[in-house]
């Protein structure tokens, strides 16, 4: 089952498209990292997935074809917006009680235990907690609903490194305990590398790349060789990105699968996740690699070394 499925999804504000022609499927049981620079359309995509924004174009469904904002979707999806909105004048205990009253399903015991483990006092007003603690409260009430899908919009950006660790540990533990699927966005990939097993890269309102991390890493590789032979091989091997210096060039190619060969005189290296994401994000104008057509020929781009 796909927890999120979109087809040609787009959102237009006035004359500019915050997200355009986005077609993707996020599988169940994974932690999908939604990465891209600020303004890439991550929040827009997430807001549409939870029904806070209506699409201008295209369609989207959740949890195996459920309509967004239907009772089934609302019941099984928990959303945590950027800056972890909680009611600042309410105590932590009040937030628990509030969430319990607004939902069919609520596991208060686990929530209280989690908060106790984190050392967050129940009587304190949430507005008086630190940023990291507020985020944990928001996450705890979201998880206490036992959702099947947890959507987190840039949850880590305002947190210090220790708070980030704690936050991710809570999310991971929930995945292990309850099998919840997670969609988590960030403009910093490094912190997600260890936890993401599905990747969605957005840039400039477009979907640049999407797939399981293991598959993407297996399908891509960097070929290093003499600059002279670059054009020939780039065309043959459907290069995603070309970096060229005087005598040497690196080609990032997507030609995964067994039986692929290395051209004589060239070396093959595996590609790291961050390198891969940057390569797909970099070309803004012409030569944008198409994420949906695997192995399509693209224009060459030169990146000054």
């Amino acid at each position, binding site marked *: 089952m796909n927890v999120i499925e979109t087809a040609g999804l787009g959102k237009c504000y006035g004359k500019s498209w915050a997200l355009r022609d986005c077609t993707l499927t996020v*599988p169940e049981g994974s932690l999908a990292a939604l990465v891209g620079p600020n303004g890439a359309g991550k929040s827009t995509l997430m807001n549409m997935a939870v029904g806070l*924004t209506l699409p201008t174009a295209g369609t989207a469904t959740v949890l195996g074809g459920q309509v967004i*904002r239907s009772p089934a979707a609302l019941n099984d*999806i928990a959303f945590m917006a950027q800056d972890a909105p909680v*009611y600042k004048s309410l105590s932590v205990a009040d937030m628990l009680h509030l969430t319990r009253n607004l*939902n*069919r399903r609520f596991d208060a015991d686990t929530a209280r235990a989690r908060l106790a483990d984190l050392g967050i006092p129940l009587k304190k007003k949430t507005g008086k907690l630190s940023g990291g603690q507020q985020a944990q409260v928001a996450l705890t009430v979201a998880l206490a609903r036992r959702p099947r899908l947890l959507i987190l919009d840039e949850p880590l950006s305002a947190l210090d490194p220790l708070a980030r660790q704690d936050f991710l540990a809570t999310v991971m533990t929930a995945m292990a305990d309850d099998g919840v699927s997670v969609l988590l966005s960030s403009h910093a990939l490094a912190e997600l590398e260890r936890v993401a097993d599905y990747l969605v890269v957005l840039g400039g309102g477009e979907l640049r790349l999407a797939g399981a991390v293991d598959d993407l890493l297996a399908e891509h590789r960097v070929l290093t060789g003499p600059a002279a032979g670059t054009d020939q091989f780039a065309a043959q091997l459907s290069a995603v990105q070309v970096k060229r210096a005087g005598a040497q060039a690196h080609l990032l190619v997507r030609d995964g699968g067994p039986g692929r060969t290395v051209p004589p005189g060239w070396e093959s290296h595996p590609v790291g996740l961050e390198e891969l994401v940057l390569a797909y994000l970099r070309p803004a104008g012409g030569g944008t690699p198409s994420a949906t057509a695997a192995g399509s020929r693209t224009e060459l781009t030169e990146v000054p070394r």
Partner: protein
Amino acid sequence: MSGLTRPAQPGRDAGPALRPVPWPRMIWVTWRQHRGVLVSVAAVLAAVSVFLLVAGLKVHHDDTALINCHPANSQACAARNSSFNNADWTMGNTVLILMNLAPALLGAFTGPTVLARELETGTFRYAWTQGIGRVRWTIAKLTLLAVVLTILAGAFSQLFAWFFDPFLGFEGMNVLAATVFDTRGIDFAAWTLVAFAAGAFLGMLTRRIIPAMAATLGAYLGLTLLAWLVLREDYPVALDTTNGNLFSGQNTPNSPWILKTWTVGNTDWWRFIPVSRFWPMQFIESGWLLLLAIALGAGTVWLVRRRAA
């Protein structure tokens, strides 16, 4: 990832038809989120009620003393009369004016807190993604708050009516007078209800608390003037008569309200509303105010449903 064993998920509803979150859950939610506002309103009304009680007792006492003052032409009685006309009346008139502003203030203070506050602080991103859904959430909040406010306002206006009774007849005011009519019977409650509904609706339109408050006050003013200057005259309770004797005599609490006069041939006609039509007028006005409040509520829900932030 296919083919891997995942931990069992106990306690998860796999039921086909999901029962919606029951309405009574929203009682605690509404109370807890609007506790501050409701308690403030209740406290203010309570404080003013105490004042009305104390002042009202004095006013009633002075009035009775004046009525029972014999002989009516004596210095002492004249002095009483003068005192009542000045001190008591000034105070009474002031309170009357404030009473006319009250529904606007109540509505502006309470209405925007339902939606504009959520939109402004961003907490709607939490509230509208909960299992209960935004429509139920909105309907429940609007209804619960409207009921509480209306009851409080209704009770309060009864106390005020009692307070103001001795002043009926002053400056030609009877119960049908523009500023007095609003403050008695069920009208005050109805105006408060409309002000609240307008506050909530405008809060959803403007998405900001302060602009919503200002807009509510403005809208309320416009609506009140409309009622006073235009609508009330057209309520189907007026009578036409050629009998001029009905209008002789000084202004008393029982004097009818003359709408207009005209002449046909040699006969003078008067259009008027007798005081006895007070309650039919109250029901007519409260009726359309209630409908308006419901329409505003429906409009608010429609905006909530349709508008994505």
